[in-house]
């Protein structure tokens, strides 16, 4: 099966820091949503053909992120979440994954937290699930469906 590799390579003069900061899905989702609004207003400058790449990546990224928990987050929930995570001594990468994925099961928590068997007790894992569920908003549609039909819930 031939896969179409569409991506091309570019170079810049200087790379100062390839990893200046990690961004949460929420931050990127917000940035792109704002940028989309700004570009809509700039209708006078008809989008030159050069902007097609930006349009494509923005569209695809927004499409992907809109189906993840970040689409329902806001600056307050993110701040509240990070504060609630303080006592658990998780790494930045671990907190980021919890924020981006909003895990609902112990299995997922164990996948995202390194050496979770040593660092977290069963109660602590349950506590994490509870905090994640309470502080981070879920998909309102999915939750409405789930409460309507309890059999649809995956049992772990």
């Amino acid at each position, binding site marked *: *099966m*031939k*896969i*179409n*590799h*569409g*991506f*091309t*390579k*570019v*170079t*810049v*003069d*200087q*790379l*100062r*820091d*390839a*990893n*200046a*900061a*990690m*961004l*949460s*899905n929420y*931050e*990127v989702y917000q*940035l*792109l949503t704002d*940028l989309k609004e700004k570009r809509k207003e700039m209708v006078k400058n008809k989008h*030159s053909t*050069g*902007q097609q*790449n*930006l349009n*494509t*990546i*923005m569209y*695809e*990224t927004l*499409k*992907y992120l809109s189906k*993840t928990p970040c689409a329902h987050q806001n600056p307050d929930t993110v701040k509240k979440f990070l504060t609630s995570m303080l006592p658990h001594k998780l790494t930045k*990468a671990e907190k980021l*994954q919890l924020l*981006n*994925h909003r895990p609902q099961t112990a*299995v997922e928590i164990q*996948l*995202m937290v*390194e050496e979770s068997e040593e660092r977290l007790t069963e109660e602590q894992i349950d506590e994490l699930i509870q905090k994640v569920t309470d502080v981070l908003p879920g998909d309102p549609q999915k939750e409405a469906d789930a409460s309507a039909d309890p059999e649809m819930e*995956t049992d*772990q």
Partner: protein
Amino acid sequence: MFVLVEMVDTVRIPPWSFHRQLNEAIAEELNKKLANKVVYNVGLCVCLYDVTKLEDSFIFPGDGASHTKVHFRYVVFHPFLDEILVGKIKGCSAEGVHVSLGLFDDIIIPPESLQQPAKFDEAEQLWVWEYETDEGAHDLFMDRGEDIRFRVVDEVFIDTSPTGPSTEKEAPSAATAPPAGAEDSAPQKEAPYTLIVRILDIAIMSI
């Protein structure tokens, strides 16, 4: 999934854009150049985050455009090692299962990173996991369009800069090889950035 990358580049503004706000013109040029493109060893560039410093603009002899050195930060898709992501199965080949995130396509689960035992069904062109439960053996097909959760195991950056003409005749590969003797004008289509990943579970079944 995303990181902020600090870069410096010289942005060329053509004279017909001089009436525009410099910041806007620069942002547009940077996005034109970088958006949806891969920077070697960095990742897939998504969009400009901000401009941190604008140095003086220069006009050089013979070129009416202005050149400005810009320090900026760009949002780049670059999952970290061991990161967990969810994508859709795009298709299967002998090389493994191909997964896509929409914004990024070049994700592959090599056969050894699938649930074992796994075999490639030639008829359906799909990878299959044969698993046994108390009720007997079942086949789980890696169907196209299925949501799949995976962990990033490795990344491969290939420098796809154009190289000089090859000095030796390379053995033709796959169906797209040009006939012997014909001019090889088509560049080698290799992904500049590939993620090698390991399957965790699919929508239907947890591991």
